[in-house]
């Protein structure tokens, strides 16, 4: 009744997954690991988009609308502008922060305007308020535009070219654009995806090695007539499954973010569409077996679950280095980088998210390399489990 090593590996894999799925803590850690990145990205994008919108869409409380119907009509036609009746006491409303800016049109506006005399418009605001300043600027520039439009019309009606009245042409060039900030956020995404793979693998990597020995079930498991290699492979498969699940959740969430967040408001040309998502998964999924195999190998040395976790936290620091370097010094992807484990995935992700499409060959090469190293690490773990010192934790 001897069953094949593959069947035995699958048996171990299934039981490991059952045991894992019933542990609220490990489910929780996978969720945290895979939600963390997308949530941060969504939050950052959303904040930026909101700030942008706040400046562009302005509700202007106007006191004395009836004194300047033409002006108010013109304002209403401007995009993103809404005119609402102003409060009875504008100064009090601003002082008590009920309004940021209130526009007051005095009673004699129509009379002076008709007589081509400067007609007064008052802006009531508190310049010490952070939110009021960009808004005041926006409103003021609107009125300045109206001002110069009317001025041009008056000059033309008197037979003078309006150009004479504009000795300077002022132009603003925005450098710290939201697009640039958005690109910065994008550069964090590879790091988040790789972290999801790492944290998704961790609970099975530690629980099925150091944890198994700590609770004293390793000995009984190894007495089964299954080859050690099959047992290790089963655990490795289980860990790979959870790591991949974590990556897929992260990928899907990022996809949703790019689908539903109003990123075009930020002037972002990039979209994470189907092909990019496929590229991301194609780069990172083959990384999962590699990560799990390395984690398991290290955790097998640990005497306890806790010790294993501290080893892996150190490993996580090491693994984050290329990611951080890439956000600070954008790597120009050189060909050799694709052939380094972990770094290769980083470069592939940066390419994919940067709108380039690297050759399929690079994906295949990186995946193959990862699998080879994973196989070596699995072999290594199997060899460790032949050692009496490891089994009995001396």
């Amino acid at each position, binding site marked *: *009744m*001897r*069953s094949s090593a593959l*069947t*035995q590996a699958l*048996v*171990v894999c299934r*039981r490991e997954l*059952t*045991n894992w799925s*019933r*542990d609220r803590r490990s489910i929780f850690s996978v969720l945290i690991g895979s939600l963390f990145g997308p949530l941060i990205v969504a939050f950052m994008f959303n904040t930026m988009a909101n700030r942008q919108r706040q400046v562009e869409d302005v509700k202007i409380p106007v006191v004395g609308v009836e004194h300047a119907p033409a002006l108010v009509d013109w304002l209403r036609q401007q995009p993103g502008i809404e005119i609402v009746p102003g409060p009875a006491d504008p100064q009090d409303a601003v002082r008590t922060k009920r309004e940021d800016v209130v526009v007051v049109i005095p009673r004699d506006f129509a009379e002076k305007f008709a007589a081509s005399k400067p007609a007064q418009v008052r802006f009531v605001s508190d310049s010490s308020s952070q939110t009021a300043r960009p808004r005041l600027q926006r409103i003021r520039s609107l009125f300045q535009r109206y001002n110069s439009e009317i001025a041009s019309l008056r000059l033309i009606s008197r037979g003078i070219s309006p150009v004479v009245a504009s000795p300077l042409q002022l132009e603003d060039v925005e450098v710290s654009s939201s697009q640039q900030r958005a690109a910065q956020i994008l550069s964090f995404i590879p790091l988040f995806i790789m972290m999801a793979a790492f944290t998704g693998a961790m609970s099975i990597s530690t629980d099925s090695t150091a944890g*198994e020995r700590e*609770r*004293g*079930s*390793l*000995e*009984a498991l*190894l*007495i*089964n*007539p*299954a*080859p050690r290699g099959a047992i290790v492979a089963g655990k490795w498969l289980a860990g790979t499954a959870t790591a991949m699940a974590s990556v897929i959740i992260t990928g899907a969430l990022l996809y949703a973010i790019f689908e539903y967040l109003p990123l075009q408001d930020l002037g972002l040309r990039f979209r994470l569409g189907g092909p990019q998502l496929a590229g991301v998964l194609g780069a990172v999924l083959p990384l999962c077996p590699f990560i799990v195999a390395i984690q398991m190998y290290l955790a097998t040395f640990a005497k306890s679950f806790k010790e294993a976790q501290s080893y892996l936290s150190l490993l996580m620091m090491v693994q984050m280095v290329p990611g951080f370097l890439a956000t600070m010094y954008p790597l120009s992807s050189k060909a050799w980088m694709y052939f380094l484990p972990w770094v290769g995935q980083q470069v592939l992700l940066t390419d994919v998210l940067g709108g380039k499409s690297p050759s399929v060959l690079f994906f295949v090469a990186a995946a193959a390399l990862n699998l080879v190293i994973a196989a070596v690490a699995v072999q290594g773990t199997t060899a460790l489990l032949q050692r*009496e010192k490891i*089994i*009995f934790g001396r």
Partner: protein
Amino acid sequence: MIRLENLHKRFGEVRAVDGVSFTAADGAVTGLLGPNGAGKTTTLRMLYTLMRPDEGRILVDDVDAVIDPQGARLRLGVLPDGSGLYPRLTAREHIEYFGELQGITGADLRNRTEHLLKMLDMTAIADRRAAGYSHGERTKTALARAIVHNPKNVLLDEPTNGLDVMSTRAVRDIIRRLKSEGHTVLFSSHVMQEVSALCDTIVVIARGQIVASGSPDDLRAQTGQQNLEDAFVALTGVDVVPS
């Protein structure tokens, strides 16, 4: 049938097992009796192939366990020292898990599992997670998963250690039952009464060496002590007050 020939194992300078030989026959219960640290667990670990002897030969039925450990493991059911369970799997799942690793599947696996759960009086806890088990329940679960494949040879390392009266009785019943079914049962213990109540043959081990072996009557005759406990003390030199 289990036969050990001249087994040696040392850890650094310590000779944990130093020339142990004995045979455990089919259809008989053999007790490996000795004080703590005498080498019982190390001997069993070599027997169930997780440790390699420095020297000596181990036969499980006709399989040389040193040369073909996997073949030997197929013929063994083992309750190791300390019965670690998976806290989030139920007793039934533990039994099925090990059954599947032995290549048992489908209805056969279900029947055997059910049979073991009944035999060990575990139906009440069968579908509860192991995290909340008492010591006795843990031991029973570990024992059930160890013999799910109905192995010819059963090794039990201190099976009744720390169990209450009812659980101890249950384990003894299992041992008798296995014996009556023709299995080879080898168990270790440091409790005299237990060994004398169950065993056909007692092997007394002390400081890594066999100091006596035979039926309980043989041991009494050898030492000239009527009481087995006195015989044990006389043989192992434990608890002897220097005069």
